[in-house]
């Protein structure tokens, strides 16, 4: 049976082959970012009543996981940050271009940035401050501009952007993927245009790699250097559809696939696996930081260490929790390896079994974001009205009682459902891997570990919410 290809659908294929399709997707998000900047700096500094905080911390995150679950990494496709490309192309004429250091051509730098971002999120209460949220957006555009101007295109998305890498990791569960329609055509393809880019010059077709300055109709290739016939994973795919436009043989498909199963066969590098593992534990921490036991733990730790320094306490909790998570994962993966009779290195063990964390990481974040999104979905209407009113547009008085999308008592069952689905997908990944080894007990060991983590996550999500900016109560 042929795999369904979304690009074969009427209009969809035509739209994505159109060279301005990405720009059309980016413009609405650019307008959202501009309004968020305006309201974040000029509007009332109250998170639930400001467009910056509501759009970024509620809707952006909510739609992001929804899009990933239903279709794919659409938010990278529509990322307005890549609109800096015009100005950076101009700036590149005057600036030298550097190569991204070899030592950083992996996910460890992004892991460090993600950890810093999560720390900053809690320490400076970014979620509670429209002003800081606006600075975050502005800073993000600034960094994208600098990196894109000084380094090859695609560097920012692949090696720097914590948000993009978050999207890449979670989109490993998505039900779609870019693939070659017919691998035979690729074997005969002379230019590998999907990755090298294509330029139609008066003297014939060339790749952008061999003729970067040639005149003619230009179709850039994959900026994150994915070669279509070899793509096994959504990791690093921004769904920019450059490959679709660059391939002269119309041989690129946006195929449907079984959601949540990619990690069963994809061979990720160890840095990518660590990113998946870390995102699960970070997602857990992000939810845990909103419930009373977290604050009790902080008080205890404060007494134990004899300090009320929030940065120190927060870093300690962060390091202890993520460190414990990574350490336990290493131990369980090694145990599973030993049980299945494999004597590989600890990192190889994590590389083999840790992929199960990808669907679990998605479920953890989706469960948490779904709560916020569904409790406050409709609040985007009054905050947009308020922001537009501030701009002087006649849009009527905001109704601040608009908020919830679903009854509150549905939320926990929904979160349980999402986490169970994540566990189900993770168990598929684990037992497929166990079957490779012909040793189901090994898969069972890792599954038990996952089961306990999910039980702990459900306990956290069952706690009453506490939305507090300070770690310790004033004495």
């Amino acid at each position: 049976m042929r795999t369904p290809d979304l690009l074969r659908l009427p209009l969809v294929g035509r739209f994505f082959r159109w060279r301005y399709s990405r720009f059309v997707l980016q413009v609405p998000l650019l307008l959202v970012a501009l309004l968020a900047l305006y309201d974040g700096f000029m509007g009332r500094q109250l998170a639930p009543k400001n467009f910056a905080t509501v759009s970024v911390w509620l809707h952006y995150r909510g739609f992001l996981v929804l899009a990933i679950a239903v279709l794919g990494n659409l938010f990278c496709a529509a990322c307005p940050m890549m609109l800096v490309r015009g100005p950076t192309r101009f700036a590149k004429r005057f600036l030298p271009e550097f190569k991204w250091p070899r030592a950083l051509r992996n996910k460890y730098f992004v892991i460090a940035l993600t950890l810093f971002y999560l720390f900053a999120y809690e320490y400076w209460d970014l979620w509670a401050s429209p002003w800081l949220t606006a600075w975050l957006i502005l800073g993000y555009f600034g960094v994208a501009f600098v990196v894109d101007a000084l380094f090859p295109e695609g560097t920012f998305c692949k090696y720097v952007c914590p948000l993009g890498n978050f999207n890449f990791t979670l989109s490993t569960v998505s039900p779609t993927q870019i693939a070659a329609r017919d691998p035979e055509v690729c074997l005969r393809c002379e230019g590998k245009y999907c990755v090298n880019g294509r330029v139609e010059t008066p003297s014939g077709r060339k790749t952008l790699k061999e003729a970067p300055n040639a005149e003619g109709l230009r179709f850039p290739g994959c900026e994150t250097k994915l070669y279509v016939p070899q793509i096994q994973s959504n990791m690093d795919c921004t769904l920019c559809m450059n490959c679709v436009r660059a391939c002269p043989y119309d041989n690129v498909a946006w195929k449907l696939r079984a959601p949540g199963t990619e990690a069963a066969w994809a061979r990720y590098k160890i840095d990518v696996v660590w990113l998946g593992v870390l995102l699960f534990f970070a997602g857990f921490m992000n939810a845990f930081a909103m419930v009373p036991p977290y604050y009790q733990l902080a008080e205890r730790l404060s007494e134990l260490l004899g300090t009320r320094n929030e940065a120190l306490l927060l870093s300690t909790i962060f390091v202890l929790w993520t460190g414990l998570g990574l350490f336990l994962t290493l131990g369980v993966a090694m145990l599973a390896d030993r049980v299945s009779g494999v004597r590989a290195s600890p990192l190889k063990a994590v590389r083999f079994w840790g992929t199960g964390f990808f669907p679990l990481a998605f479920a953890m974040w989706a469960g948490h974001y779904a709560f916020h999104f569904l409790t406050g979905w409709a609040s985007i209407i009054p905050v947009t009205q308020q922001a537009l009113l501030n701009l002087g547009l006649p849009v009527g008085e905001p109704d601040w009682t608009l908020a919830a999308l679903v009854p509150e008592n549905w939320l926990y069952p929904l979160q349980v459902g999402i986490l169970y689905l994540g566990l189900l997908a993770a168990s598929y990944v684990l037992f497929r891997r166990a079957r490779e080894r012909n040793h189901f007990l090994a898969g069972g060991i890792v599954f038990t570990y996952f089961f306990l983590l999910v039980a702990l996550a459900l306990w956290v999500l069952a706690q009453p919410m506490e939305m507090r900016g300070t770690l310790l109560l004033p004495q």
Partner: protein
Amino acid sequence: MRRLFLLALVLLSACRPKTGEPLEAEVRFVPEHPTVGKAEICIEVDPRLELTRVEVVGDMTHAGMIPVEDEAHPAGPGLWRVDAFDFNMRGDWVLTITAYDKQGKKYVKEVRLTVP
């Protein structure tokens, strides 16, 4: 150019919206430190202000939370009271007290508190 940019930064960082005249008021709670549940809010203003309406809106500092809205009733000269304001969740709260005088002039005061 650099100066312009710096000026823009200073202006942006200095921006704080104006929502009404500041309301000079003393705000007390009963119990003194409210916990999750109902609490009384007493708002004491200069009696010469001749207020006609006082509203209290409670927001949490996280986006997406439905605000709690209540209206204070007069309880003596310059004293307004909300009998049972519903602090329905633990965390940081921002109370916005909006008062209107006979001429319809609006006064606003913001009170921040943590509900443990």
